[in-house]
């Protein structure tokens, strides 16, 4: 099994992507709604990632 070394950002974005796919597929009824909700979840994950990242950077100085 190869070993992968991802940065915090890469690992977080990858996890966000995989979770968004599943959330989009299982929670909505039509394909269009699924796509929209998956993208919405992914966008929320990214916004939270960047928001918390900046908050931690500014908090630590």
């Amino acid at each position: 099994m190869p070993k992968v070394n991802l940065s915090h950002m890469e690992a977080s974005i990858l996890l966000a992507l995989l979770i968004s796919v599943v959330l989009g597929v299982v929670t909505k009824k039509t394909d269009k709604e699924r796509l929209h909700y998956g993208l919405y979840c992914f966008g929320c994950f990214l916004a939270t990632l960047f928001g918390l990242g900046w908050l931690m950077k500014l908090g630590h100085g």
Partner: protein
Amino acid sequence: MSAEAAKIPQPAKPSVPISKWLPVVLIAWAIPGAGHLYLKRTQRGALIGSATILCFLFGLMMRGAFFEPQTGDLLLTLINVGGHIANIMTGIPYFLATWLGYNQPDVAGHVHDYGTKFLVGAGLLNILNMVDAWEIATGEKE
């Protein structure tokens, strides 16, 4: 009128026999996405199955640790037993990995830590897959 109509008890939906949904849920647990494939929801099954298995594989490749069901104080028990249950919920991939000798100790480092979260996340995603398959099998969802 509408308030009165709301008070009238609606007839309960006939319950779906367990033989109709239990095999689907078990298949969905054993192989991520297979419950949907069994129900002829091929695209959805392929999507969520591959997302769940990819999550698990990345967890292994990042050398994440599986949780052991240790008990102690409340928080320790919650984390370890909950993590162990989430690991088991991945189904056959978890048992295959342990059977093939994957035994990564919990070591320091952000990559290992993310790996552990990916492994737990795969189990949690598979629970969502199982619930969705159950809803389809019982007719609550298309």
